[in-house]
């Protein structure tokens, strides 16, 4: 994988995914390693994303590398009208690796074609965010001990949710059964259901969250955003139907874990946080180890 970019989770073979997850486990045991002395990683955030950026910067710092970059395009030459092509050509002569978040879809693929150094896509609009998918998979593997034969329950905005689509595509490489819990307006698009049908994988759709929790190994929560609804009355009707409360976990499997890409707003009540099922903050921490593994893999260091 040396000198390759990571733009989409589909760029990786199953072996490569397994290798990155294994490496992430090694970084969890031993996170501080001087593997990047003299290396410069550029973090180009054309739109702000505090969590993702801090996670990448933490990963680089733990590996002894240096970070350059910007956190918001209003402070960069992009506001002067510089093209992405020029920005990437320039930055790739300053850095050994570029981490990029950009609001325009396909921008990361394009950047990977004009850059002389590997690009890590840290989100291109509504398209791809492969490092999120890998850290989700690391969290699943770590808590369940396997990626095979799991029941993954996805909750909330399944129509526009980039993270659930990528996770579905990635987990469909294993024998996964899915449960989709979403309001009518935000149901899983047909193209993904067709994809699972073609693979012969099972899924079940429902609008009722409480009925499915007891069977799940993983409950993957996402935010239901008001602006996604054409009818605000519809939003008011469903907004509390997809909120997880402590008492809903009474019959859950003991090993069931709740994941959330964060930030959460109100979809997981804070009374869930102290339960053994809550895993979202550890999941965020796992992001650092997973990103250490990805950076080292793309630079050919590990």
């Amino acid at each position, binding site marked *: 994988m040396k000198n390759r970019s990571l733009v*989409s989770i589909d760029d990786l073979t199953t072996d490569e995914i397994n290798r990155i997850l294994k490496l992430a486990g090694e970084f969890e045991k031993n996170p501080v390693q001087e593997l990047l002395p003299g290396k410069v990683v550029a973090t180009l955030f054309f739109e702000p994303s505090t969590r993702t950026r801090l996670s990448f910067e933490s990963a680089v710092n733990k590996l002894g590398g240096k970070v350059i970059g910007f956190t918001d395009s209003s402070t960069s030459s992009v506001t002067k009208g510089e*093209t*992405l*092509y020029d920005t990437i050509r320039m930055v790739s002569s300053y850095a050994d690796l570029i981490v990029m978040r950009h*609001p*325009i*879809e*396909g*921008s990361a*693929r*394009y950047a990977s074609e004009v850059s002389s150094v590997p690009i890590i896509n840290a989100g*291109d*609009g*509504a*398209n*791809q965010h492969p490092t999120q998918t890998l850290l989700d998979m690391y969290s699943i593997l770590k808590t369940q001990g396997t990626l095979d034969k799991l029941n993954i329950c996805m909750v909330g905005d399944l129509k526009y949710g980039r993270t659930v689509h990528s996770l579905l595509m990635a987990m469909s490489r294993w024998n996964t059964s899915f449960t989709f819990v979403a309001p009518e307006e935000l149901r899983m698009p047909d*193209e993904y259901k067709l994809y699972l049908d073609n693979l012969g994988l099972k899924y079940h759709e429902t609008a009722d969250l409480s009925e499915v929790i007891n069977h799940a190994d993983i409950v993957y929560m996402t935010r239901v955003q008001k602006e996604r609804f054409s009818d605000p009355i519809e939003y008011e009707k469903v907004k509390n139907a997809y909120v997880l409360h402590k008492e809903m976990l009474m019959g859950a499997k003991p090993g069931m874990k709740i994941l959330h890409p964060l930030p959460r707003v109100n979809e997981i009540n804070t009374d869930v946080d102290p339960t053994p099922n809550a895993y979202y903050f550890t999941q965020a921490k796992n992001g650092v180890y997973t990103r250490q593994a990805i950076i080292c893999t793309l630079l050919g260091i590990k």
Partner: protein
Amino acid sequence: MKEPKQLSVSAIESGTVIDHIPASSLFKVIKILRLDCIPNQITFGTNLESKTDGKKAIIKIAGVFFENEDINRIALVAPKAKLNIIKDYEVIEKKVVEVPDTIVSIARCMNPKCITNFEKVTTRFKVISKKPLALKCHYCEKITDQERLEII
């Protein structure tokens, strides 16, 4: 008195005839094959009556013989086009067009948020279905179908 049968577009001695182009796609075909940039003699007719397809167009290009790879580029706008290869006023070969597996620099991505609609990027699509037509953008990974297809 019966009218003698006449050719709407006069015959060529040698070259390529592209027939059964939908009349509405004539100028798209000219653009895709860059016929506006070659010095050869070209004649065309449009809004001609077709027994099978309503209004059709026909193009006759003297002295040009296309590679399949080039001619298949017009399949997006003229899927029923038929080619006659002419030598000494005789048809020596007939060809039909076929939708290629990849489409480069012909179609526009329907996604307004795609990088190809912001910067000078050559569009690239993988043809994921030929009938009905569905093109997956190499960059934003969104699907452009026949209805939303726009030729650049």
